[in-house]
């Protein structure tokens, strides 16, 4: 990984800032229109979750490479309350905020790789990757 840029998530408007940054970044990497929209949507979901459930955190962007293919790696990090039951939050429709509960399971489908690690009281880190087709 040769570079890393992070966008802080503190105010509601940062959700828009992060997804716009991610769209530009993915455009530069050569993603098509549909994948740019997928990546921007995934970032929006991750950023909103940070804002809503952790208060603040950051979203970091990396360019990744793997045997000739190029991709974008996005990491959402917060030091919020963490997630107790990960399989539960990955269910479609599960929400503690009256939302659609579409965010996390949606991000998993929007991206090619999805890893989540979380510890109660310490925070959450979600890493996603999408490869240029």
């Amino acid at each position: 990984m040769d570079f890393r840029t992070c966008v802080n998530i503190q105010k509601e408007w940062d959700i828009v800032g992060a997804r716009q940054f991610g769209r530009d970044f993915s455009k530069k990497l050569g993603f098509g229109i549909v994948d740019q929209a997928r990546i921007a949507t995934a970032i929006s979901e991750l950023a909103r979750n940070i804002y809503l459930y952790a208060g603040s955190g950051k979203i970091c962007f990396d360019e990744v490479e793997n045997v000739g293919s190029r991709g974008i790696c996005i990491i959402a990090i917060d030091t919020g309350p963490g997630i107790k039951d990960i399989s539960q939050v990955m269910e479609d429709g599960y929400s503690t905020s009256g939302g659609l509960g579409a965010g996390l399971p949606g991000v998993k489908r929007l991206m090619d790789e999805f890893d989540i690690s979380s510890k109660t009281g310490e925070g959450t880190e979600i890493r996603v990757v999408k490869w240029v087709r």
Partner: protein
Amino acid sequence: MRIPILKLHNYLLISIQIDLDDQTAIQFQEDLLNKIHQSGATGVVIDLTSVDIIDSFIAKVLGDVVTMSDLMGAKVVLTGIQPAVAVTLIDLGIHLNEVTTALDLEQGLIKLRQELEE
């Protein structure tokens, strides 16, 4: 930021031209319901041609707008959803089944007229 709502006969027309943040989306929901109430509009077209992202929150707000407007007696049609946005909505598991959609503003108005005359 405020999204302008135009009145045309019995219809309200809205074209969303900005990247919607949560606050603007909520404000729009409130403004539209007030406008329906004031004007007695029976139909609403929300044009999304310029919207290049709809995430789960915005989808929820739009879905709620349709349901609430319906309760107030105004039929809503969403128009101009971009192909990429349609794809991401399906990835999110959001199907907007109960929502009437049309290709563009013109088709939206035709659809409204048909549905309201039935």
